[in-house]
């Protein structure tokens, strides 16, 4: 028993060192560091949004008709929109909306994809076949198109947009978890758990699941960029967040009416989307390279 505890401790130490080495490897690339920096700023902005925004009420949607379409200047660094709202404040509040929505999508996707992957991998045979063929079928669709079709029929609002983006997305996690489970279920600790008489459910959720969570979390982080871009795209088409809530995609679309003269509305909100997606993609590349030098850019992921 004592031996075992020592061994576990040792393992944790090793694991810590491994993470640290990985982190170093990731940060050696200037582009990755840049991406990570932007993400840290973004998360901080989202957390502190109401305190950072110069005009938080306008950021949430209150109009201010006295100052319509003011160009960028001292009072409004990024200008104001057609309802007189400060663009900077709306972008800051929008960071919160975007991150919250992206996290919600990731959670939905994990809630559907991970259990299915566990079941498919653990039981194998017919169950596996059915789940995976269904997953393949969903993956055969172009994902954004499927999302658009889903929101178009469910009706446009944020919740439906979240569901619509999640539906084409969960099969990736099912695949990921399944492949993990297949290798894990032959391991000795699973064998011993079975020998003790642990139930299937217990083995699956208490013994196997914790061991395949870290790749899932890594993958989820990497997917954030794509999810934010999809949300912005749906928002742009009017199928996502509904006004007056601040959403970057909606803001770009709102600015379209005026943008040849009042270019700032769309431009700055677009920059916010661009930088965020760029940051997540740069970080993703770094992490992928650190994890596996031979890995290829996952082009299927759109």
């Amino acid at each position: 028993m004592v031996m075992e505890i020592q061994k576990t401790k040792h393992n944790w130490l090793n694991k810590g060192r491994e993470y640290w080495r990985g982190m170093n490897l990731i940060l050696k690339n200037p582009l990755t560091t840049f991406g990570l920096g932007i993400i840290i700023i973004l998360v901080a902005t989202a957390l502190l949004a109401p305190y950072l925004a110069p005009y938080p009420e306008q950021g949430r949607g209150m109009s201010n008709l006295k100052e319509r379409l003011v160009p960028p200047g001292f009072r409004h660094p990024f200008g104001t929109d057609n309802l007189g709202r400060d663009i900077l404040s709306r972008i800051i509040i929008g960071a919160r909306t975007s991150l919250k929505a992206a996290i919600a999508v990731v959670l939905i996707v994990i809630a559907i994809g991970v259990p299915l992957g566990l079941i498919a991998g653990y039981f194998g045979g017919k169950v596996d076949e059915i789940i995976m063929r269904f997953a393949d079928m969903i993956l055969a669709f172009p994902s954004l198109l499927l999302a658009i079709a889903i929101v178009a029929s469910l009706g446009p609002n944020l919740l439906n947009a979240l569901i619509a983006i999640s539906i084409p997305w969960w099969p990736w996690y099912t695949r990921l978890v399944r492949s993990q489970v297949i290798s894990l279920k032959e391991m000795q600790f699973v064998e011993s758990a079975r020998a003790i008489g642990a139930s299937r459910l217990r083995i699956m959720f208490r013994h196997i699941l914790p061991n395949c969570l870290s790749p899932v979390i890594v993958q989820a982080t990497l997917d954030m960029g794509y999810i934010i871009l999809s949300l912005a795209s749906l928002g742009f088409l009017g199928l996502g967040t509904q006004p007056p809530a601040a959403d970057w995609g909606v803001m770009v679309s709102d600015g379209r009416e005026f943008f040849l003269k009042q270019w700032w509305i769309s431009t700055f909100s677009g920059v916010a989307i661009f930088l965020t997606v760029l940051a997540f993609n740069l970080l993703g590349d770094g992490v992928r390279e650190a994890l596996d030098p031979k890995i290829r850019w996952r082009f299927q992921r759109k």
Partner: protein
Amino acid sequence: MLRYIIKRLIWLAFVLLGLCAITFTLSRIIPSDPAASYLGPRPRPEQVEKVRVQLGLDKPLYVQFAYYMRNLVHGDLGESLRTHRPVLQGIWEHLPASLDLMITAIFIALSVGIPLGVLSAKKENTTLDHLTRLFSVANVSVPSFWLAMIFQIVFFRWLGIFPIGGRIDTVVNLVSPIKQITGFYALDALITGNWAALKSTLSHLILPSITLAAYSTGLIARMTRSTMLEVLREDYITTARAYGISEREILFVQALRNALGPTLTTAGLCFAFMLTGTFFVELIFFWPGLGTYTVNAIFLNDYPVIMGITIIMAVFYVVVNLAVDILLAVANPRIRLG
């Protein structure tokens, strides 16, 4: 080989069936009553009842699905709720404009992406490599609808070089109209020797196709870089160097030939992705293609059009994927067929 293709085709049939089931389900969970929206604003109840019978909406769901499938097999995607014209006809009319854009875009993506990838691999881990990679990631990350607007501000409003949108200048089209032969404006203008129209078409084509190409350019450059890096480490490249073959020939002939497979696969998939990409690009550049057709349908809640396009595009996507896989398997015997 043949067995592999047959297997894939059977799978394709299943995918298509699943696809129809999904779109059918989607079209039936719409909150608004299709029969009511068919009639337009303020229909009388007895009219709605009549249309419901006419559209087969009074039958049980599985019967409706059977009808739906029968119609699909006959190439009938239903009628637009607004214009009451067949959806297939609408798609057919808007398709050439979109293909025009997509073909130009994939051409741009290949001709920019491949050289960039080769260059980046050659100069691995130099500043040039970092810059190229940043450029590729930026291309993959940029929201196309925003890029399109920035292009319009810069090239139309500030520099005044390119038109803001549309497929051809209205005046040019009046003075020397294009004779529609293939539906591809540039090609038609070229065939008929209509130079004014050709010039106008090309200048209208540039901004939208570059916007549409951005994502694919980034992806293709990435793919080329990573496969080139692998190929350049192989023995036969060292041998070629030892023989004194020029570096340029090694890069662009010896190495690239073997690195091209994955790049072309990527290009094939990119072409399929572009179908969704055109939604945004066409909307902003007033391009009268499938994207505009779809987006208008979304705004008007014209669900038969949305579902019809979803089906057609998904079929296109699945078929392109299959074609790419098969081509690759034919080209590279090392690929194990499963």
